[in-house]
C-alpha cells in the first residue's frame, strides 16, 4: 500500500538489518531463541517488511532474502523430522532453523559487545583531554544519522500499534476531509516540542483520526530524526518512547566552540 501522494521524500537509510529485526521480535515476544515459533515470527517479520515498504524506507535487499529464508524454513518445518534428516547428512542439522539460530546467536553476542562499548563511550564523553578541541575530525559528524537510543523497529512498533487502533474505527469521511503534508507535520511537531519539551509517541498518535495522518506524522518524525533535530528515547526496554529536540538543535552553527 504505497502512499498515494508524496509531497516530501523521506530518505531514512536503515542501517539495521534483518537479523536486528528478528532479534527485536524475539525479544519483544519473549521467545526462546533456540526454539523459535517460525510461523509466528515469519508473520510478524512480513508485517514489518510491509510497513517499511509502505513508508518507502530504503531497506536493503537482505530483508527480502531473509523473508524468503523464513518461508523456506517454514515449509521445511512441515516435513516430518525423519524426512528432513534424510535430506541432510548431519543429524544435528536436521532442524531447518538451526542455521538461522546460529547466526542470530552469534550476532547477539556482538550486539552485547556493542552495548559494552556504548557504556565505555558514555563514560568517556565526560572525559576531556587538553587537545580535545583542536583534534582534527572534531567537526566530523558522529557516524551515520542515529535514532539515538531507539531502534527503527521500536519506532515501527509504535507506528504499527497506532495503525491497528485506527483500523478499528477509521472514519472514512475524515480521510477525504483532511490532507496533510509531511512539511506541515514537521512544522507542527517542532512547534509542539517547543511548547512541551517532549512528547510521547503513543500520545502523539492518539489524537489522530486517520491512517493518512498517522503515516504522514510518522514520516515527519523520521525526517526530523534524520536531520538530528529531534531524538527518540525509550524509558526502559519496550517502555514508552518519547521524542524531544536534540540538545543542540537550533543552536546557531559557528557560535564560538570554545572561548
Amino acid at each position, binding site marked *: 500500500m504505497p502512499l498515494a501522494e508524496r509531497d516530501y521524500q523521506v530518505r531514512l537509510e536503515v542501517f*539495521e538489518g534483518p*537479523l536486528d529485526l528478528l532479534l527485536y521480535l524475539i525479544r519483544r515476544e519473549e521467545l526462546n531463541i533456540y526454539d523459535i515459533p517460525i510461523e509466528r515470527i515469519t508473520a510478524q517479520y512480513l508485517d514489518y517488511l510491509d510497513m517499511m515498504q509502505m513508508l518507502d524506507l530504503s531497506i*536493503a535487499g537482505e530483508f527480502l532474502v531473509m523473508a524468503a529464508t523464513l518461508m523456506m524454513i517454514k515449509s521445511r518445518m512441515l516435513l516430518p523430522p525423519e524426512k528432513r534428516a534424510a535430506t541432510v547428512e548431519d543429524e544435528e542439522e536436521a532442524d531447518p532453523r538451526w542455521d538461522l539460530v546460529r547466526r542470530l546467536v552469534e550476532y547477539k553476542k556482538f550486539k552485547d559487545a*556493542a552495548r559494552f562499548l*556504548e557504556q565505555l563511550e558514555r*563514560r568517556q564523553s565526560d572525559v576531556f583531554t587538553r587537545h580535545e578541541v583542536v583534534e582534527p575530525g572534531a567537526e566530523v559528524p*558522529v557516524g551515520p544519522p*542515529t535514532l539515538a537510543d531507539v531502534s527503527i523497529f521500536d519506532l515501527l512498533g509504535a507506528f504499527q500499534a497506532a495503525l491497528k487502533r485506527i483500523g478499528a474505527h477509521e472514519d472514512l469521511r475524515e480521510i477525504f476531509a483532511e490532507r496533510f503534508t509531511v512539511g506541515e507535520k514537521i512544522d507542527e511537531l517542532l512547534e509542539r516540542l517547543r511548547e512541551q519539551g517532549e512528547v510521547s509517541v503513543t500520545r502523539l498518535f492518539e489524537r489522530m483520526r486517520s491512517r493518512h495522518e498517522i503515516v504522514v506524522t510518522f514520516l515527519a518524525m523520521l525526517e526530523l530524526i534524520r536531520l538530528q533535530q529531534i531524538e527518540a528515547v525509550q524509558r526502559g526496554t519496550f517502555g514508552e518512547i518519547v521524542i524531544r529536540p536534540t540538545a543542540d538543535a537550533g543552536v546557531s552553527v559557528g557560535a564560538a566552540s570554545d572561548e
Partner: protein
Amino acid sequence: MSEAGAIPELKAIVGAVLFASRAPVTVDRLVQVFHQAAERIGGIAAGFAQVGREEVAAAIEQVRADLAAAGIGLRIAEVAHGYRLESDPACGPWVRVHLDRMRPQRLSPPALETLAIIAYRQPVTRAEIEAVRGVAVDQILRNLLDLQLIRVTGRSDLPGRPWLFGTTQRFLEHFGLNRIEDLPGVDELRRREAQVAAPDGCGAGLAEKPPAEVAALAAGSAAETREAMGHDAG
C-alpha cells in the same frame, strides 16, 4: 614554581610532557625523550642521561598521586598502551558547558556493532562483517574510517584480495581502553570456529555472564553520568 634555567625534577618533566602531548605517552617514550634530550641538548638535560624505566614509572605514579591529592579536576589515565592527562569525568558537565558542547558525541548502535565486530575479529574483511550483521556496512565503514576509529590494516589472501580492517589507536583512546585485550570476552568472540559448537554452548554469551567490568559500568558510573548530564531533564 621553578624559573626557566633551573633544573626541574624528573616528576615535573614527566608531568609537562604528558600535558603537552597530543596522544597517550608510554614509559618507553619518556625514557627515550630523556636520552635524546641528554644527547641533543646536553647541559642540564645531560643530568638525566641515565634515567631508566623504573624511575619514569615511579615519576608517573607520583604525578598521579599528587593530582589525586590536589583535587584540581585532573588525573592520569592508562589509555592506548600509554598514559594520558585528562579531566575528571565528574567535572564533565561544566567542561561541556564551557566548550558549548551540550550533547556528548556518540556513535549510533549500528556503528557500535560494526566496530565491535571489527574490534574482536580484526583483521577482518567487509564480507565477514556483513556475514555477521546480515546487512551491508559500506556507509558505516566509510564513516568509521573518517572518524579514524578503524583503518585498513592490509589485504586478505582471499580471492579479490579484499581489504582487511582493524581498530586504531584512536579507537582505544575514544573508549578509554588501554589494550584491545581489555574488551570483555575477547577470547570467546574472536573467531567463529572456536564457538557456536552446540546450542547450549552458545548460550554463554555476554548477556548471561557479564564480566565484572560490564556489570560495574552498567550499575554505577553510566547511570550516574547520565543523570549528571541531565540526560533525562533536557
